[in-house]
């Protein structure tokens, strides 16, 4: 095989990777952003979180065997981290500088606002995605026994605030 052949083969591979990534991206984008927006309560932040995961996946695209589960797990982890950061910011801004609050410039899912991240995630995964308790536990990387109590507490809260 000549150098030219190698070069052609390399370009073919790159094109294949790019095309498959594009297909994957376009198939997953809307669902992931909407799911993340429900989880974190901000479409703008959801866009950023999902975008960042796609950048990481693009970087290592050829090494990811199961991109779907990888994407789901990564987006969920970032939503969880964002939820923690929100809690920290909210606590700080409430006490120190309310004018510096940077959260929820465009809030959605207001009814979920008072829920802790795990409760919020359970609600979204159960009623929006349609997962079972076991699947939710797997997605959240937590014991299956934790899902029921989170769900019950979240439902209790929503029962009070649902119009």
């Amino acid at each position, binding site marked *: 095989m000549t150098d030219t052949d190698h070069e052609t083969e390399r370009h073919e591979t790159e094109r294949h990777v*790019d095309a498959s990534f*594009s297909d994957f*991206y*376009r198939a997953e*984008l*809307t669902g992931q*952003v*909407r*799911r993340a*927006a*429900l989880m974190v309560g901000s*479409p*703008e932040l*959801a*866009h*950023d979180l999902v*975008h*960042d*995961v*796609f*950048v*990481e996946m*693009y*970087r290592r695209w050829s090494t990811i065997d199961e991109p779907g589960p*990888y994407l789901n*797990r*990564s987006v969920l*982890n*970032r939503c969880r*981290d964002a939820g*923690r*950061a929100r809690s*920290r910011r909210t606590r700080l801004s409430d006490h120190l500088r309310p004018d510096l609050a*940077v959260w929820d410039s465009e809030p*959605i*899912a207001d*009814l979920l606002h008072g829920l802790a991240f795990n409760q919020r995630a359970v*609600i*979204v995964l159960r*009623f*929006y995605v349609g997962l079972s308790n076991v699947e939710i536990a797997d997605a959240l*990387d937590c014991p299956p026994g934790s899902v029921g109590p989170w769900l019950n507490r979240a*439902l209790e809260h*929503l*029962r009070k605030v*649902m119009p």
Partner: protein
Amino acid sequence: MTSTLEHEIAVYLRSQAQRVEVTDELDAIENDFLLLPRARVVLRHRRLAPVLGVAAAMLMIGGLAVVAQRGGETLPGGAFGSVPDPVVDVTATPPANLAPFPVATDVPVEVLLPDGAVLNGVVPSCIATADPGVFECSIDAFPEPLGTLDYTGYTSVIVDDTSHVSGGCRATNSDATEYLCYVGDRAVDEFVVSSGYLGQYSPREYAAG
């Protein structure tokens, strides 16, 4: 009663989700990838990515002179083309007349650890260094009371998005809130993580002890 509530929740979530307008950012993905392959910059808004990427890249690569010589060239946008005018979100504000390739030798750029890695269960605030495998990081507080012991030199792994060990950090102050973090094999070279542990599954949550 319960089933009605659950139905209402499902309807509510679907209606909320439908309100989210989704923008195709495939172009921006390749741009971010090209500009910043090793460290992800903390973004206040997606449109900030390109210049943040440039600034971080300037810090990470040593050959600033080579870059400066390129003068008015535009960044390689790849097949996905150019990007809109960005606004910079860095600790030190760059000049308004930002050159295409600013020599930002001492501009600290806040970044996240690669692959969304967490340290002691939290996302640390980090600054990229000239070495792409090394980050100066800090956390608000150690996740458990440390007493009066000096924790300088304390080591801890970092765990990526997929719950795998992706490197490690060594505390540089006594209350273990400041760290030097090493990514990948660099962490093994620095004796922060054993080669057998790197890449292994690990919970992202902090585990006491």
